[in-house]
Each structure stands twice: as structure tokens, then as C-alpha cells.
């Protein structure tokens, strides 16, 4: 769509600008050249408005020969040709207008036209190119606005994809095993079966809810981990012990959602569940100065069979934290003599809950 002719408001502004150009032409080419002010204005302002409409054709020239994708000499020759045509038409219109004015008794109009024909032609070409420059700028501005919009859309898409991935992270193995435990408990211990059902429902609901936030207090993340571990304790029994130690200033720090969850899941599936005798998972969080430190420790079997894809969770977390906090190496993982420890260090952010 034409950027000027397509909108009445813009057309009005544009014509107003050309009235001003007409006045300038009156001052430069009319006044003092055998005519008075009134004649100059009478001659040049209508010509300005007429040329305003003629030069709209520059838009199509600019569209057909965009600066970024066309060869230089294509653009130059098209613009020269178009300017010659436009200016020629304009000069012809000026001649007709001068004759009309003369017929109406304004004789001085002819003296503004006849001797200045070549000059008018040059001015017309220059003005045409001025309009072309204006349209090229407009195109560039639109392109940058489009790029910006596309960028925003892309960011939104990426965020959506991340959230989807987070939700999909709920380990199917965990769900099916939990259901199997509930099935086992229904006959032997119905109240425990019901408790487990509710725990599982709470955990799933919270995972979906937290995943929708930009950031959440660490306390909520810890509460989610508690629910998860409570469910796994039903399944693994005495093999799984949990020790938790988070100071209150750390608990109120804001973190990206589901930051801790994959680490806790790793600690259970690749740590405790791989040990015949089980062990203790230690979760600690401290806040000192401007840094929030979350550590997770668990015993592990150094000779366990490693499946592909292990370490993917840590890699994903690293990427998420880099996206969130900029280029910081926030995740330190270390395995030594049957002991796994992962430490996450991120800027301590507090504030109203988003």
C-alpha cells in the first residue's frame, strides 16, 4: 500500500509540506523576477501541490529498485529517467498554468515561466530525488521496524518453546512408577495410596504452574522438590533420605522456575536409585552478598552403567541460566569417589513475586 496516498492524514501533512515548498519556490524563483509576491505565490503554490502528486510516482520507482537489493546503476538510471519524466510533466504543467494565469489577466506569470524553464526543470528533478530519498528512508525505517517485531516474536517463541520443554521434562518413568506404587498400596494401605495420589497431583499441578512464571521464589522451588522427594520416598522406602538446609534469605531469592527440579531428579535416578543400599540427598541454599548458592549432593555408584543423554539435564540448565543471567558459568558439577555434588551460583535477586 502507498504510504502517503493510503492515509488521508499523511496526505494532508505531505501536501502541507509541498505548500511550504511552493512558498519557498515563490521566494526563490518568483519574487523579484518581474513579479510581485501575490503573483509568485499564485504561480508556485498550486504548482507545488501538483508536483506533490506527480512525485508520488517516486514510491513505485523506490519499491521496484530497492537500495539494498538492486545494482547501483539500475537505481541511478531508473531515478534519472523517472526524474526527467516527472520534471518534464511538471514544467509542461507550469507552462499551461502560466498561460491560464495570463489569460486571467495575471501577466507577470509568464515572466516567471518563460525565462526560467531550464531552471524549473532542474529544480523539478532535484525535488523528485528529494522525494525518492524520503521514500527510501521510509522503506528502511519500515524494514527495521519489521525486523524488531520479528525479533520480539522470535523471543516469545523461544520462551514458549522453553516452557514447553520444561513441562515435557516431567519424567514419564517417574509418573508410571508412581502410579505402580499407588496401585500396590491400594490393597495393602489405602490411606497411603490416597496420600500418594494427592502428592502426585500436587506435584504435577505445581510443575505446570511454576513453569508458566518468569521467575519464582526459591522457597517454591524447594517446596516442589520436597513433594517430588516425598513421592520417591514412598517408592524407594528407606533407601532414600533427604537433608535440607536453606536459609531464609536464600529462600526468598527469585530464580527461574524448575531450576532445582532436574537436579533433584538426577540425584534420585542416577544417584540413589543406582545404589543397592541407597543414601542421603542433601539440598542446601545460602545467600551471601549478591550471590545465591544452591548445592545438591548425593552418593552415587562410580561404576554405574551410563546411558546416553546423561548430563543433558545439566547442559540444559547451564544454557537456561546463561540466557537468564547473561554469560556466567553458573553450574559446577563434580563427581569424586562415589560422591556427586552440583553447585549453582547465580545473582541473588529479590523483589515482588512476578
Amino acid at each position, binding site marked *: 500500500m502507498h504510504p502517503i496516498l493510503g492515509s488521508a492524514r499523511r496526505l494532508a501533512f505531505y501536501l502541507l509540506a509541498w505548500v511550504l515548498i511552493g512558498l519557498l519556490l515563490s521566494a526563490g524563483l518568483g519574487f523579484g523576477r518581474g513579479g510581485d509576491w501575490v503573483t509568485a505565490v499564485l504561480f508556485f503554490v498550486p504548482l507545488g501541490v501538483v508536483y506533490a502528486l506527480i512525485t508520488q510516482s517516486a514510491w513505485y520507482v523506490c519499491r521496484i529498485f530497492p537500495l539494498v537489493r538492486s545494482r547501483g546503476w539500475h537505481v541511478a538510471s531508473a531515478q534519472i529517467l523517472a526524474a526527467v519524466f516527472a520534471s518534464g510533466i511538471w514544467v509542461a504543467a507550469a507552462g499551461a498554468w502560466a498561460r491560464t494565469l495570463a489569460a486571467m489577466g495575471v501577466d507577470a506569470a509568464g515572466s516567471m515561466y518563460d525565462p526560467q524553464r531550464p531552471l524549473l526543470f532542474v529544480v523539478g528533478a532535484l525535488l523528485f530525488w528529494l522525494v525518492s530519498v524520503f521514500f527510501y528512508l521510509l522503506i528502511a525505517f519500515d524494514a527495521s521496524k519489521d525486523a524488531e517485531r520479528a525479533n520480539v516474536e522470535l523471543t516469545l517463541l523461544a520462551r514458549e518453546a522453553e516452557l514447553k520443554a520444561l513441562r515435557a521434562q516431567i519424567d514419564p*518413568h517417574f509418573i508410571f512408577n508412581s*502410579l505402580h*506404587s499407588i*496401585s500396590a498400596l491400594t490393597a495393602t494401605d489405602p490411606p497411603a495410596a490416597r496420600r500418594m495420589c494427592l502428592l502426585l497431583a500436587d506435584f504435577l499441578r505445581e510443575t505446570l504452574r511454576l513453569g508458566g512464571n518468569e521467575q519464582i521464589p526459591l522457597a517454591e522451588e524447594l517446596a516442589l522438590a520436597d513433594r517430588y522427594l516425598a513421592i520417591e520416598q514412598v517408592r524407594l522406602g528407606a533407601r532414600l533420605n533427604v537433608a535440607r538446609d536453606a536459609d531464609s534469605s536464600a529462600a526468598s531469592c527469585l530464580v527461574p522456575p524448575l531450576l532445582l527440579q532436574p537436579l533433584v531428579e538426577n540425584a534420585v535416578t542416577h544417584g540413589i*536409585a543406582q545404589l*543397592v543400599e541407597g543414601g542421603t540427598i542433601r539440598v542446601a541454599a545460602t545467600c551471601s552478598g549478591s550471590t545465591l548458592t544452591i548445592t545438591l549432593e548425593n552418593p552415587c*555408584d562410580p561404576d554405574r552403567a*551410563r546411558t546416553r543423554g546423561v548430563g543433558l539435564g545439566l547442559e540444559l540448565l547451564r544454557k537456561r541460566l546463561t540466557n537468564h543471567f547473561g554469560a556466567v558459568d553458573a553450574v559446577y558439577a563434580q563427581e569424586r569417589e562415589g560422591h556427586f555434588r552440583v553447585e549453582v551460583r547465580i545473582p541473588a535477586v529479590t523483589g515482588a513475586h512476578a
Partner: protein
Amino acid sequence: MMTEDLLRVIVVDDEALARTLLRELLGAHADIEIIAECGNGFEAVKAVTEKKPDLILLDIQMPKLDGFDVLELIGTDVPVIFVTAYDQYAIKAFQVHAVDYLLKPFGAERLADALARARARIGAREPLPAKALVSEARAARSPLERILIRDKADVHVIPVAKIDYFESQDDYVSLKVGDKTLLKEQTLSELEQLLDPGRFVRIHRRYLLNVARLAKIEQSVTDSRVAVLQDGTEIPISRSGYAKLREIL
């Protein structure tokens, strides 16, 4: 009227609740007797060796020795019904080899179906394709990190880093671990496929060497070469074995 033969079953699952459920569900089958319940793979191999069951209900995900490790160790000795919650590779392996398996959570009907099919297999004396199943399920794993050896009722787990070299002995492979020699029922070529080719090199038709143990290569009087290990042991190197070694070193 003839009663069906009593089926003597071993239940293997590391989760107590899962064993409880199986006990409850199997209790409804008068023709089945649970002769052992095992909480891990070691107990399972021991129970299989000592009690010679007719059927095992074997969970896949277990610590130290998983279901496939147990299968590798007991081989085709006993019919198995596999149990898993969610393991794409395992399920694919079961489907490829048309093996009975139960997906957790399962109920009485599914279990009854699986038992009926197992009975049919036992009647037909159909052997379990244990080797193919294990290698199929292992395809998802990174190179072998440990070697499992069954010594009657006991299981030894040997990290590959501790092994100096493997030597082919017909259908067996002997492992040199320091001054000990262990035997495993597997061919050298199979092992070579499973181990990290950057760490274990077939330097000879009969030898697979842990490259970390190599001290030097000596040219003997004739055209052949000899690998000298850190403890002074000498192993022959074939011409193609030498080429492979040079590629890595």
C-alpha cells in the same frame, strides 16, 4: 482331571512396593509358587543358580545390576517376563524379539496373559534370545565400562580400566586383572565391539589390549613385534594389530 504343573517363580524388583503388588497378584494363581523375592540383581543371579526357577519376573531398572545385566549373566537358562515402567530401548528390544513384558502399572489381567504366554513358551521349550536382547538394549549405552562375570552364584563387576588385556580361549575370553585371571563366556570379537575402540585395541587375533597398560613395543629378531606391558608381560602383535596401534598412539 489333570492339574497344571506348578510354576516355581522368582520375583526380582528393587522396589518393595512393586514386589508386594506382584505377590498379591500372583497369589490369585493357584498354579504359581513364589520361591524367592529378590531386591537386586546379585540376589537374582544367586537365586536363579541355587533354586533353578521355572520363570523369573524381572524388573529392568535396578541398581548395580539391571535386568539386562541379570539376563546377560543367566543367559538362556530360565524363561523371563520383563517388567519396566518406561524404557524406550528396552521396549523396542522386547518387541523386536517378541518377548513377554509388562509395563508398570499393570493389573491382574495383563499379568495373567503374560503368565499364560510364558507357560506356552515353557511347554514349547522355546529358548529366550538372551544375547540378541541384551545387545539390542545395550545399543543405547555408551561403550562398555564394566565387565560382569558370573562365578556360580556370585557376580563380579570389573571396571574395564582395571583390565590389562583380554585373551581369546575358544568360546571363552580370559581377563587379566593384575595377577588374577577370570573367565567369561563371550567371544573376543563381541567384546571388541562393545569396548571403547580408543582404549582397547585388537593387537592380535587372540589379544585385546588395554592401551593404557602398554609400556613399549619391541621388534623381535624375526619380522614380528611384541607389546611389553607395564608389568613386563609380553604379548605378540600382528601386522594389522600394529597398524591399528599406530593409528591410536
